[in-house]
């Protein structure tokens, strides 16, 4: 076989002006000479599903917490027989992952009974444990919500003296920040308590269907398992209810007001405002992105976003359109699909196994579908708000020029900055931070701007013969086919076609609208084809407008795939290069049945 490999992380050329990028992260995160021989010996893929853009120093926290927590469950909790964790690095701000397999067959063998005992307990008690999980997450969120960051007082309150507390506000703010970090790590431990097992059960059903029906479309399997009512759809449902309420109350003109503040001023005192207030927490703790970046806007903090969607729904209702998801029809269709495939199986034993595996997949799937709202949307929104509170404290002390600059400080450096602030407050002199941080943050912004210009390669290092690591396949949808596609794309003989997953059937032609950030969503015109690196659940309302969707990243179970199937729109996901190949306004044809995107112009 010809020498086909991806560039080494040590040879790949970085963007000009990015010098010093390594200093933006925990020392263990960048590729380094210290571990070069290991790092060069394995295959790394860029995780554009979760981290398509360069990470700011604080946002790298989520990356590290998430991947370490995922790994910990495979390696130390459940002893997944063939898999340890996922190793992770950063290169010029971009996230690169490599799965760590268990290679010794004897060790795999030895892990099997332990896995069965441990995972078996979870599968057997899934519903109880999941109920407890929801309660745990809600407690955790309440605990985070209770944390507040305030500037240090000019002098301590009298009670500190009279109650003999013997400690002051400077300790508290440092403690609270550390507590927030610990809660954030706990959040990610909870996140992976179920996820890997859930995907394993899903993949088992998937494998059974593929063996029984070698040509069954992936989406048929997804359709049989997916829930009809899912928490992730709930924010969109709430928007629809608010739109209906507005029409019912005859207050729909209020949405024509020029700003969110004006809309609320007009609606003040109406029952609609009560409905809004009831819906917004928790459901509008909803990120316009994947929830991992502080830049992604959160509905509850940017009410103009949900209000804009509500206005669109109001217009649809006025035009006589039914905006409800046809739940009964969706359920009936799901039952039909299951019954027909079941009837086509060869034997009664197969039908029994099919029902059992489907049963387990459906038991685990609510977690797979719902956790995202609780963790990445709701909890992250809370953490980002708390961090901004802290940012405001730093702004007030002159450490930062603006609130969001706090995300340009590494998570552990914040302890040092708090120390500097506290220490100067205690001593009664000036901190160094007021000079140091504005200068340092300006430098970091320049570096990250340079990194943003970089075209991060989809993979690094030696490609594996065959991808066997189950979580790479399950969680990232990376298969030998996608690797070959990346290798082939570099050849430059691709012609006018892009290939990806046939994620939602049908064919559509139209002008492309390339959306690189959630802020551009408003540019979408009816009938256009959405072309984006990836879509987020909070984009749901725009799917009523577009005629098809194409993404760089994601597989059959990606958000764009699920929503397009729901809306009956063609979708091709995981094309890797759509946003870099297709230009705004170019006419394209999307064939969601074959996974092909053709550039027509």
């Amino acid at each position: 076989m010809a020498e086909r490999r991806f560039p080494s992380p040590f040879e790949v050329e970085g963007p000009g002006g990015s010098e010093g990028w390594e200093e933006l992260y925990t020392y263990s995160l960048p590729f380094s000479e210290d571990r070069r021989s290991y790092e060069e010996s394995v295959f790394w893929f860029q995780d554009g599903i979760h981290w398509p853009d360069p990470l700011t120093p604080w946002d790298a926290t989520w990356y590290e917490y998430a991947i370490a927590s995922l790994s910990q469950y495979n390696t130390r909790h459940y002893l997944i027989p063939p898999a340890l964790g996922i190793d992770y690095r950063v290169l010029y701000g971009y996230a690169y992952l490599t799965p760590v397999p268990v290679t010794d067959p004897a060790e795999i063998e030895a892990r099997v009974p332990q896995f069965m005992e441990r995972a078996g307990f979870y599968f057997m008690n899934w519903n109880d444990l999941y109920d407890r999980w929801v309660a745990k997450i809600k407690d955790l969120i309440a605990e985070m919500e209770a944390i507040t960051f305030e500037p240090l007082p000019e002098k301590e309150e009298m009670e500190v003296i009279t109650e003999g507390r013997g400690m002051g506000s400077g300790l508290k703010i440092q403690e609270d920040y550390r507590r927030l970090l610990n809660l954030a790590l706990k959040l990610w431990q909870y996140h992976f308590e179920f996820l890997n097992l859930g995907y394993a059960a899903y993949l088992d059903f998937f494998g059974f269907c593929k063996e029984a029906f070698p040509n069954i479309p992936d989406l048929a399997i997804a359709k049989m398992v997916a829930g009809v009512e899912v928490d992730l759809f709930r924010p969109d449902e709430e928007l629809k209810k608010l739109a209906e309420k507005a029409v019912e109350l005859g207050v729909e003109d209020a949405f024509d007001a020029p700003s969110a503040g004006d809309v609320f001023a007009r609606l003040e005192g109406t029952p609609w405002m009560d409905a809004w207030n009831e819906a917004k927490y928790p459901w509008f703790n909803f990120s316009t992105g994947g929830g991992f970046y502080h830049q992604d806007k959160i509905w509850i903090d940017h009410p103009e976003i949900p209000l804009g969607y509500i206005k669109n729904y109001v217009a649809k209702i006025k035009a006589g359109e039914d905006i409800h998801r046809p739940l009964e029809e969706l359920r009936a269709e799901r039952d039909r699909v299951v019954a027909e495939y079941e009837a086509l199986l060869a034997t009664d034993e197969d039908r029994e196994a099919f029902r059992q595996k489907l049963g387990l997949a459906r038991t685990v799937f609510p977690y797979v579908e719902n956790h995202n709202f609780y963790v990445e949307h709701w909890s992250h929104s809370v953490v980002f708000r708390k961090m901004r509170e802290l940012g405001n404290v730093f702004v007030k002390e002159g450490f930062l020029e603006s609130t969001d600059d706090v995300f340009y400080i590494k998570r552990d450096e914040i302890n040092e900055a708090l120390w500097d602030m506290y220490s100067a407050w205690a001593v009664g002199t000036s901190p160094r931070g007021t000079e140091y941080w504005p200068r340092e943050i300006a430098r970091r912004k320049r570096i990250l701007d340079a990194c943003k210009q970089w075209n991060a390669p989809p993979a690094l290092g030696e490609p594996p013969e065959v991808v066997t690591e189950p979580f790479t396949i399950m969680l990232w949808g990376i298969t030998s086919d996608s690797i070959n596609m990346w290798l082939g794309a570099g050849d430059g003989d691709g012609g006018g076609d892009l290939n990806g997953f046939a994620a939602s059937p049908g064919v559509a032609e139209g002008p492309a609208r390339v959306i690189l950030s959630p802020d551009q969503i408003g540019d979408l015109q009816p009938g256009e084809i959405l072309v984006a690196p990836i879509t987020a659940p909070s984009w749901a309302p725009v799917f009523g407008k577009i005629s098809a969707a194409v993404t760089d990243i994601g597989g059959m179970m990606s958000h764009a795939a699920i929503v397009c199937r729901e809306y009956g729109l063609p979708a091709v996901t995981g094309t890797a290069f759509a946003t870099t190949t297709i230009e705004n306004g170019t006419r394209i044809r999307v064939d969601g049945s074959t996974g092909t995107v053709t550039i027509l112009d």
Partner: protein
Amino acid sequence: MREFVLWFDQYRESDKPRVGGKCASLGELIAAELPVPPGFAVTVEAYDTLRDDTELRSNVRKALAEVDLDDPDSLELTSRYVRDLIEASPMNPEVERAVKASYRELCAACGVEDVPVAVRSSATAEDLPDASFAGQQDTFLWVRGEDAVARAVQRCWSSLFTARAISYRHETGHDHEIISMAVAVQKMVHPKAAGVAFTLNPTDGDRSQIAIDSSWGFGEAVVSGEVTPDNFLVDKVLFEITRRTISPKAIEYVLNGSDRVEKAPVPDDRRLAPSLTDHEIVAVAKMAKRAERHYGRPQDIEWALDRDLPEGDNVVLLQSRPETVWSRRAPRPVARPGQGLLDGIVSTLLSPVHTRDRLATTEGSDM
């Protein structure tokens, strides 16, 4: 009383031996409300009127007694001679009246003067080696006018005496004199495209799929194997097109200027064009699924896309028979006996399905 003609939609169960397998099957499909073009059976009683002609009978008997079965030339000569005798002898007037009257009725029902029909033999099982043998030799396409129809019926009758049929009956000990056959006269569609379909994937037996072979013009090009057809795979439950292979289609059977079906090269601009639209692919698949539902087992169908019918309503079913290759094999169960849910998950983790596919294809293509 002898009945020489029976309409496809008028059979009773007891009529089946009188109309032969082909006609019986068409009648059953019509009864199941599948879109089968109308027509009628010329029954075995009609064929049996040949026996009333004592001179014909003795001439045929004599010729067959003299044939040297080991000599292909002699066999061929005898066959030609016997067939000429049958085709030249006048048709029984009652049969002729019945056939012509039914044909006129069909023309009236279709609202077409001299409606084109296909005239095919409809064998009763014992008479001929196999159905495909019968079907290949004696199909007359695009027959128009009552005289031409009557003549085509006679030519079907005579096809019982092809060289192969004579020698087959000799080998198997069937009596030349008691054999019989029925003939199907069916309105013909003028197809844009036509072909066959299986209600499973013939390459791997996957029952969740419908495999469609399709090419331009009359279906004979696909059935005879003279063209490499387009091939489509459609999921039977979701009606997703799961695979499409467009082949260069070199020839097609089309109507020529003198209203006859003939083989012609496919013009360049259509050779590599898909012979069916997505919508049509799904329509064919849906009809195939209905046929399978009706019979309760996998089917092998012939279909055509009628130019003269409105879009969405233009797929017609020409034949449906049980699929025989995969249906005869023992079922291949997927469930591993004694394997619990957790064992299944462990083996899934140890060998995810994508890997298995990949390993299989890598192994297959390595050398």
